């Protein structure tokens, strides 16, 4: 049953793969634009230097660090483009979230106008939800920092040498699961907001939290997709490690495929939550407000 549902959510992503490609394209384009100053700087130093061969046929750490130690190639001066690209990408995703979730809720191709209408309609609510999510994610990050510090102390002081490491790894796994759960809550909230055109975000979040807690199967689905993402990432990195250093094109292609898989996995999670919400009955008080395109249940209700 779980497999069926995971598959059906995957089918959603597959059927609407245009979204994956678009997001991937914007992800790549923004990153490329953010990296142009890096290319320009590196070209000035490396393109006419024989020393650059050490970075092509292999990756010599000493050469690379000497490159970064040049005043004109400091990582700090090159970072703003990268950070800027990441922030713009986040805004872009928040902007299209409404459209993407509508597609997954309704499982139909929207016209461009419909897509952006929904995107615009829900943009600020998506931004508010993202801001709310900073709180639990921030707490988790703080917990991770605290536990890592404690684990470091254990690594130094505990009689058992590996205890600190085990605590660190174990806590990271637990925190990752917690992060996945938080994401599930917010994804459910996003889907609910879009389906019901709901404006009371805190009420929706509270409902999503209860729903997430009450649906072990739903979290299991998230876990399954998360594992898929982790496994494909590990496989991709494994393949990349076995490619020769000089095969830059093939290496980047493999890593781009990894990136594509990660993006698809993230959308898969959104599809899982959207589908789950789509199959829930409308709440009595929201039936009146529900848009005309309200979803028809096409599958059994979640247990």
């Amino acid at each position: 049953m779980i497999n069926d549902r995971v598959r059906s959510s995957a089918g959603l992503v597959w059927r609407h793969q245009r979204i994956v490609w678009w997001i991937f394209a914007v992800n790549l384009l923004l990153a490329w634009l953010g990296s142009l100053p890096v290319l320009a700087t590196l070209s000035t130093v490396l393109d006419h230097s024989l020393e650059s061969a050490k970075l092509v046929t292999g990756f010599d750490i000493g050469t690379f660090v000497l490159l970064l130690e040049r005043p004109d190639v400091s990582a700090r001066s090159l970072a703003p483009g990268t950070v800027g690209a990441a922030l713009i990408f986040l805004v872009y995703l928040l902007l299209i979230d409404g459209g993407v979730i509508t597609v997954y809720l309704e499982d139909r191709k929207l016209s461009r106008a419909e897509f952006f209408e929904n995107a615009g309609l829900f943009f600020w609510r998506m931004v508010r939800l993202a801001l709310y999510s900073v709180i639990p994610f921030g707490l988790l990050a703080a917990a991770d920092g605290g536990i890592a510090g404690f684990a470091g102390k254990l690594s130094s002081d505990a009689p058992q040498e590996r205890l600190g490491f085990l605590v660190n790894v174990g806590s990271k796994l637990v925190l990752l699961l917690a992060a996945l759960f938080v994401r599930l809550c917010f994804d459910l909230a996003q889907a609910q907001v879009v389906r019901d055109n709901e404006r009371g975000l805190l009420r929706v979040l509270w409902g999503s939290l209860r729903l997430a807690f009450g649906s072990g199967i739903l979290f299991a689905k998230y876990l399954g997709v998360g594992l898929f993402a982790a496994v494909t990432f590990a496989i991709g990195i494994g393949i990349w490690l076995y490619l020769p250093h000089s095969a830059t094109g093939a290496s980047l292609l493999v890593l781009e495929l990894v990136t594509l898989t990660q993006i698809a996995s993230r959308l898969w999670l959104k599809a899982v939550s959207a589908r789950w919400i789509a199959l829930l009955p409308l709440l009595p008080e929201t039936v009146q407000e529900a848009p005309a395109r309200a979803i028809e249940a096409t599958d059994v209700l979640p247990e």
Partner: protein
Amino acid sequence: MEIRCWRICLIAVAALLTVGGSAQTVPLSERVVAYRIEGVYNPKTHTLDATEVLTYTNHTGATLDKFPFHLYLNAFQPKSTFMTEAERSGDRDVEKGSGWNDKHFGSNEVKSLEIVGSGDVTRQMKFVSPDDGNANDRTVFEIALPRPLPPNQSVQFRIHFVAKFPEVVARTGYKRDFLMAGQWFPKVGVWWNGAWNCHQFHALTEFFADFGTYDVKLTLPAKWNVGSTGVETGTKDNGNGTQTVSFHAEDVHDFAWTTDPTTKVVEDSIRLSHGTVKIRMLMQPGHMASSARYLNALKGTMRKFDEWIGPYPYAQITVVDPPHGGGAAGGMEYPTLITADTTWWMPKSVLEPEFVVEHEFGHQYWYGMVATNEFENAWMDEGINQYMEAKVMDALYGKATSNVNSRLATDGERGTDRMSYVPVADRDPLSRPAWLFMDGSSYGGITYAKTALMLLTLENLIGEKTVLHGLQVYFDRYKFKHPAPTDFTATMNDATGQNLDWYWKQAIYGTETLDDRILTASSERVDWYNKAEEKKGVTVYYNEVTVDRRGTFDLPVVLEAKFDDGSTVRERWDGKDRWHRFTWEHKAKLVSAEVDPDHGYLLDRDPFNNSWTATANRKASGKLAGYWTLLTQWLEQTLSWLA
């Protein structure tokens, strides 16, 4: 009867050899000091209650009326010079601005001091601070003799002291049950260059002491493993849960020991030109995977030193593997005892266990035998040893892979040295006393890395074998002595048959930096006014390369130019100007030009501007920018977890 006497004599000689901890019967050094120390270690309080009898023989030629002593463990107190400097600038084990931590408290408390034959002089002990005048620093004290000591006479001090060890910091102290006891006893200063040399303990300094003999008896918990400088000469079970272990060492200038109930002992031996040397390793149970790595690196290093520098004259070398959390005890040298460094998860591709063991064994030569003043001339032990590390590690593990050797990335000793040298290249001269360096980065980058790069660069000027020969001669002349920088430079000049003072002046006493670059390069038709089409192999070009000296370090420059007909030329410029133009009229265009084509000038701060190619090759910049793009994509993806 005769046979019996002969056998007894033979056994006595054999016993002497074993007990002496050295294959020599004739002293290798001028034995200035003879220490006899007996102590009881309390593992609960991490204290050692001991009595030291020091016999000092005056070989100085002068009459001595006072004696300075080090009390190194007093450095681990809040107002000490060591801790103040560490708090302000950071230290290997104490983070800058980390504040006082009670676990770092250590002390050497002298309970009584008696000059044998003259009575108790404890009240006359006077703490002095010759380096910074810090009245709260108690790492050096002086004692005036009631009667001056004439040349060739001896004086005996009997000192009752209690050493309290800190949780391991600056190479000494405890971690759980493990103890690394370094700099633990009152140690007399060195009469050097006509004066007492006894510096305070600073955050960036190491040590300096005279050669002599050590007879040490330690009472410890029974069955705890023990390792030390020299050799173990006996163990007595006291029947009360303790044991008393005796050690002897000679022709050494320090004595360190370690104990731990959980270590596993790994023993081996190696046959070298001077005889067989016993190898004793005290391994943490969780680090056994590194024991073969330690052993291979140690044996390889010992063979290389035996071949390149000279024999290791001691009977044993002990390797101590500190426990987790005890890293501050790792990577340290003491005579015939070194501490290593590893973890339970140390990847094979990271050669840290190897280069630490290599480096610390190298100190048996550059510190142990050639006993330079580590306070004032740290480069002479750390730096020369770092050069040897590069040579040995390169020979054993490959020039480009001697530090990191994985599929993902590689790194060699030279690369690591350049990484630490380049950012601090012009901060401090090598000749500066260690405690006067700007900070720890400068101390490390200059003392270790610059010296190694200076000698590697010298190889390019006078040849690798010549440099190694020079070091061999230097070792022969100054083993078991305390050479000064001028002894090193004069010996190198002498051994290599060249006056290299111009080089030493810049590299040791100055902060000159080297950065030669190709400023411009071009190929123009000689008949530039001719409008006829160019013909390959017929048209004559005026090729020129301008080399610009951006740094201040004067070195002759070799330039290699390659042309599109496959020909190559090498030309030399004496480097006595800010720039130089190389020109060729040739029926071919320049393809590339490179200064230092053999990549031997490792002092050069910027290797990227050393060469020029006519055609752009975008592979490296494209590759790095591609990966940067990918990292940006992943950062985007990570942040998008909020959406």
